[in-house]
């Protein structure tokens, strides 16, 4: 079976002054279309590095990253930008909304990047924010802001959603709402959703769990009967 994403012995080396830091050490894994994947690991393990490489936000030092049969590890800056624009929707821990734009405008910003972007108001409605279109981020709660940022990510109709600790700045109740929303995207809309987190409880809800420690893949488990997020015991 053909995989959507394939990491082949990918390494990433940072040079800090005279020291070298191997943030990713020959990482290999595959992800299929529509999977709900959780990348687990303690802080500093290299999860974010994997996410950055996957999202085309950084260059790999060695190895191959194949997305949809295309080797993006060979891409230059410009092609990577194009790849990000067309394929990747990001959701960050701190939402990273533009504070001077309203919820609607933040989502509609994607229209400037992707011509085929979905209707911003409808997408915001699908995350339950139809009443907050014209509010600025500072007028919204953390959970609402994160929902805007998810709406922004899915608005461009990307191949995959990459979420970096999406609930890290939220209380657990709101966190469950956000994660349920992400799981719904995968189950109902067949989106590939990849979540990076240090919270191992989420593993129970994932189709596939990739555990990372010290820059290496420790193990990959496939969950045949994942729980719904709301059923997970936090």
């Amino acid at each position: 079976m053909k995989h959507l994403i394939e990491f082949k012995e990918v390494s990433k080396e940072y040079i800090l002054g005279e020291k070298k830091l191997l943030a990713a050490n020959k990482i290999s894994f595959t992800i299929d279309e529509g999977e709900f994947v959780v990348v687990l690991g303690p802080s500093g393990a290299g999860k974010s590095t994997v996410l950055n490489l996957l999202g085309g936000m950084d260059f790999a030092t060695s190895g191959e990253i194949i997305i949809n049969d295309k080797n993006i590890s060979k891409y230059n800056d410009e092609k990577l930008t194009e790849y990000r624009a067309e394929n990747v929707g990001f959701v960050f821990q701190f939402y990273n909304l533009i504070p001077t734009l309203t919820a609607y405008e933040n989502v509609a910003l994607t229209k400037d990047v992707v011509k085929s972007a979905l209707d911003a108001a409808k997408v915001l409605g699908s995350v339950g924010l139809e009443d907050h279109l014209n509010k600025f981020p500072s007028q919204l709660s953390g959970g609402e802001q994160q929902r805007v940022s998810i709406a922004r990510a899915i608005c461009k109709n990307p191949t995959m959603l990459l979420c970096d600790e999406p609930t890290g700045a939220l209380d657990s109740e709101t966190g469950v709402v956000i994660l349920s929303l992400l799981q719904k995207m995968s189950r109902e809309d067949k989106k590939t959703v990849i979540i990076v987190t240090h919270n191992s409880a989420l593993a129970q809800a994932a189709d596939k769990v990739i555990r990372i420690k010290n820059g290496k893949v420790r193990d990959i488990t496939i969950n045949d009967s994942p729980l719904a997020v709301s059923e997970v015991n936090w």
Partner: protein
Amino acid sequence: MLIRKMLRDMNVHKTQFISIFIMSILGVYIFAGVGSEWYGLRKTVNNYYKESNFSNVWIYGSDFTTEEVNTVTNVDGVTGIQRRLSLDSVVNLENSPVLTLHIVEEDKISKCILIEGEEFSVDKDGIWIDSLFAEARKIKVGDSISVTSNGISMEKRVMGTVMNPEYVYAANNNEMIPNHANFGFAYLSYKAFPLDIPISYNELLITTNNTNYLDMEEKIDKALNGRYSVFLSRNSMSSYMQFDSEIRQHKGMGEIFPIAFLAIAMLTILTTMARIVNNQRTQIGMLKAMGFKKRRIIFHYVSYGLWLSLAGSAIGAIAGPLTMPYLFYEAMQTTYTLPEWKPAISFSIVVMAVISVVVCSLATYLSCKNVLKDTPSQTLRPKEPKIMKQGILEKTKLWNLLGFNAQWNLRDIFRSKVRSIMAIIGVLGCTALLVCAFGMQDSFDDIINWNYKQINIYETQLNLSVEATTDQIQSIIDDYNGEAIMEGAIEIKANKIKKSGGLLVTDNVTLIRSVNANRNYIDLPEDGISISYKMAENLDVKVGDEITWHIYGDERWTTSTIAAIYRTPMAQGITMTKDTFNKLGYTFIPTSIISLEPVESEVAGVTSTWSIDKLTESYETMAEAMNILIYILIIGAIVLAVVVLYNLGILSFTERQRELATLKVIGFKTKKIRRLLLTQNMWLTAVGIVFGIPVGWWLIDYIFAFMGGTFDIMTVVSVTSLIYSIMGTFLLSLLVNRMFSGKLKRIDMVSSLKGAE
């Protein structure tokens, strides 16, 4: 969406963007205003010269014959020639005004421009007079006037009023401001001249296509076999020269000041944008992560500077020519005569506007390009804090002796170098402009002092009529306890340089004194000639060198050795005593009597009487255009200082908000924190002032270098002016500081110390 983001960002950082906007308006406004002013004058006058076929060369002599005219016509480079008779006449009106009559066979060179009445024609009897003279004397077309010259009287009907390119600056000898009621010109056909008197043509007007006048003089000299007295080219013709140097002065000043404003706009943009881009680091990271192309992100940030400077430049470029030239024109109309006063847009205004937009956009680009260099993943992380190192100063023992206030401020200044340097530059610019403005005023006032209080210590000058008899002169001297002087126009040659200048011959004169280059009184030698300082400089001669000179109207050249050099602000030339003058074979004919006594009634043999007060007044009228520039400078200085300092205040205030909140939490009183900020402000202001004063001085020198011409202006900045400039700058700085004290009180300790997000 990004445009909305830009507009909202601008709204958040209103102050900075407004100041960038104001600076770009001001820079282009002044440049375009003064630029269109002088360019309009140049265009108008060039057009005037072209349409009237303004003469390139004037040859003065006597009895020019048709044969001579023909020989000169054949000289290589000569494109046209016309002879005329010019003579001064007295009009039979109150105060006996003087009209210079030009009797011509045709009117094709230095042609008259008709203002009212009939076009000039040699076949018409009658007189065409100076339109401004007509206006001042309320003479209408169709009136008759009676003029007397060399004992011949004529009564003529005024056929028309005219302007003539030779009279753009139409001041009579010794006068600075033209008095159109007392001096003018008139045109007559040779056929209108009384038939019984043969006409002796004494001038040749020549147009040339060769502007190497030294070369032309040689050729024409050969053609005429030296039978002429004066060769005068445009460049030494007083009307042409005076107006030309006036235009050049305006040009010089209009170019230097906008540069200051543009530099400030650029610095403001650099600091503001650097700060915005740094603050929006994660936003940029987000845009990158979303897939925005680098180019678009760069363009987004560059557009902040681009649109503002574009709008500012456009407003400045449009408003400048619409408003500023008229301020100057009104003041200049008392001095110069032009058929029209119209500003003109030169291409350089467009260039300046483009430069200002490019510079502002470039500054924006420079401040954001670093953030964009990083990969998106790096950009999303906050910047690593700057590593603080102990400076050399902090390692010395002296450091510990400084109080907290000094330590904190010194560290802060060195940590934010760009901000500190910008503050110093802003203050420097303000002080420099103020010193320049006040200093120019001082220097102009100094001329009055120098000329009318130090050198010319008489009260009244009675200008003698050419027809005054020796008896009349003697009785004036006796009646008013006067002293006789002879003034004339000469041409001086030395080191292959030729200059026009003035001649002053004195007969036991005590009411005109002399000063040396350092303005100390000296006595000029009884024997030998003395030369003025600026003339000596222009001719590159010193005491003991030889110069050759001749009086206009007299073909004889005299060679003399310079015995002394004196310095005078206005009339550059040479001076000698009556005895020396006589010894050289000339006859002393007094042209004026100077006296300490006031003259109220009309005196026989005198054409006009001037009091020192009246002379001072006319000098001040002439300096009026200059005063406008001075006011512009002062306003510019104030705007500059307020905008730069306020902008920086906001910048440093927001940058240090957390620090200040910490101090507040620790228990510092608002008053103490205010003093902390004030200290730094005063330090930077003091440094700016120290550097600003010499820059202001240099600015004055620079502007005076453009004045050229016959003025010898010494740069003088009085102590009072210095104090005004320094106090003014300090006051502005304090005022801006005051604006922040309210903000200081409102610092919210809790929210300022909360997390970054």
